């Protein structure tokens, strides 16, 4: 789960990670109120969406008067912001963050992520702040300093020194940087974050460090022990159909093709899409029904797949391990009573109780349901149906 910049900064503040002062606003009036509350003569108006590259897309602007705050807030609120991370459709800006301006001497990058190869968190720092870090990583990897922290010992001063000297910081800056990095590591560990990124991390003219930006993503499997973070979920940032699916234990991603897929297991679901592609068709979606599929979830699966008007056939591909095939077969029959399945459904059931399942489908004798003997057969039949054959 991802959160907004203003929410990440709320968490940073609790851990004494320095951030500029700021307030979130949902309207132009509120934005001006916030600027007044902050005082001073320089403000930053920042679009709050779950994507990077907001500045380049025109979602972050400087204001030098309250009048300008009003104008910019009016422009940014309600705009559809397109960045390299939103996709071409962009994202609607529904809230903005009004922040006090900072006196920037230098822009750095600081992030914490899990290094899967080393199996421990790694802190990454770079002098190339404000830039796309993926680009820096690809073009000049030597400019990114990486320090892995073994959680058994936690963040130590030497980790901080490796980062600080690696960045080439001045001697008098070292200790405040180490404090900053230590606090950020604590944020990462104590909140079960999956990723934290501060880009840019600003060195002010007075020599202190401030998180000018903040991105945080969390390990979904750990949210059960962080209700305060779960409460930060912004459902408007999530795809409504994907969210509806997840409420029923289904994992759904819409694609551009015309063969709907309902599969158990993420790997087989991707493999099914690959097979449809391989035999000359195009998959309309990824849909993993998971291990606990029953009539309701299968019905919901059909309903969600059929929301996509491009879908011309559906391929149900189940290899029963935990999921018993007879249960899926009954689920399919139940589902056809609950949902109007108006396209051909090709069904391939294999594994636990596959024989019983075949009997159930055969005896039901529904004309829209076509059985398949294996993955290849199923993919071919579903693609043929989608092409109208």
């Amino acid at each position, binding site marked *: 789960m991802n959160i907004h910049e203003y929410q990440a900064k709320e968490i940073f503040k609790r851990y004494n990670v320095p951030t500029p002062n700021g307030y979130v606003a949902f309207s132009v009036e509120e934005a001006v109120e916030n600027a007044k509350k902050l005082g001073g003569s320089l403000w930053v108006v920042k679009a709050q969406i779950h994507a990077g590259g907001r500045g380049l897309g025109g979602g972050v602007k400087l204001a030098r008067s309250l009048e300008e705050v009003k104008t910019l807030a009016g422009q940014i609120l309600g705009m559809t912001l397109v960045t390299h991370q939103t996709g071409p459709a962009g994202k609607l800006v529904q809230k903005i963050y009004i922040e006090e301006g900072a006196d920037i001497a230098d822009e750095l990058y600081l992030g914490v992520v899990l290094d899967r190869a080393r199996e421990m968190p790694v802190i990454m720092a770079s002098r190339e702040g404000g830039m796309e870090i993926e680009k820096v990583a690809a073009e000049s990897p030597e400019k990114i300093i990486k320090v892995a922290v073994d959680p058994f010992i936690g963040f130590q001063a030497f980790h901080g020194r490796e980062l600080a000297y690696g960045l080439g910081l001045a001697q008098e800056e070292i200790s405040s940087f180490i404090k900053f990095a230590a606090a950020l590591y604590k944020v990462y560990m104590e909140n079960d974050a999956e990723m934290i990124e501060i880009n840019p991390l600003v060195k002010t003219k007075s020599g202190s460090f401030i998180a000018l930006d903040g991105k945080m993503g969390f390990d979904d499997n750990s949210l059960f*022990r962080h209700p305060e973070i779960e409460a930060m979920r912004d459902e408007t940032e999530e795809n409504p159909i994907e969210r509806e699916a997840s409420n029923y234990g289904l994992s759904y991603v819409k694609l551009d093709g015309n063969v709907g897929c309902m599969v158990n297991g993420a790997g087989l679901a991707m493999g099914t899409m690959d097979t449809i592609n391989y035999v000359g068709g195009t998959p309309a979606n990824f849909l993993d029904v998971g291990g606990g599929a029953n009539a309701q979830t299968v019905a919901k699966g059909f309903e969600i797949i059929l929301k996509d008007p491009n879908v011309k056939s559906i391929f149900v591909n189940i290899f029963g391990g935990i999921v018993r095939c007879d249960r899926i077969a009954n689920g399919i029959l139940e589902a056809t009573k609950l949902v109007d399945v108006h396209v051909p459904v090709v069904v391939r059931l294999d594994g636990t109780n596959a024989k019983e399942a075949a009997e159930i489908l055969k005896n039901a004798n529904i004309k829209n349901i076509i059985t398949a003997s294996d993955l290849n057969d199923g993919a071919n039949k579903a693609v043929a149906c989608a092409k109208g054959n």
Partner: protein
Amino acid sequence: MSILIDKNTKVIVQGFTGKEGSFHAEQCLAYGTKIVGGVTPGKGGTTHLGKPVFNTVREAVLATGATVSMVFVPPAFVGDAVLEAADAGIELSVIITEGSPVRDMQRAKAYAVKKGMKTIGPNCPGIITAEECKIGIMPGAIFKKGNIGLISKSGTLTYEGANQVCNEGFGITTAVGIGGDPIIGLSYLQLLPLFEADPETEAIVMIGEIGGDLEIQAAKFIKEHITKPVVAFIAGQTAPKGKRMGHAGAIVSGSAGTAAEKMEALSKAGVHVVKSPAEIGKKIAEVLKKS
């Protein structure tokens, strides 16, 4: 022969008396797995499925001599369960539980390594030595005894791959579902040499997914150390970039971890790469006929 487990392996079940634990322990017993007991705190001293229940793993190990644990405890407690197994001297812990917090698994894995305990999973179907020992949730009937070793990140693709291999008239030595979470136990790099050393295994099926770089590492390793033929499939060629596909591990970022990149690396290492999982069985038949 086989790898890691056989008909003599003594297994305890952590989370023995729960719904999932009970159902699958019963299936494993029916398959012939030597389950010698289980652990459910608070139910020590009772019996379940005709086997003794213990309060702690240490008691279970002392009383039964078990060397392997199969873990079904809920996600919130799985880290603790694996730490307990490692501390009690278990040699291999097979973690079936789905939805484990990453931080907990990270710590548990590090401690397991320190204690010399191997782990498989989490979020995986487990491990099976055909017709001898099943430690996991896979449908046992499809795994016929034979000469093919199988390693897979995906659960259902493990079944798909094994089923095809058997339908072509071959069989399985051992199949391992390694799971696709960010932190996993035994992976290609540890399992490939075991299959290479196993005299009964003649060829290896390797099933990967988008995300991470384990398959790239495996490609390098295969080129240098593996003489047996390897057939590979990488799921997610048609997955859109940056989209999450159900597994926390299956995230493609930038150019790293795409199916195309992995397939190319494996091909260059001399691996027989198939574009559809439906081709796994046929490719094995083709490769073994040639050699």
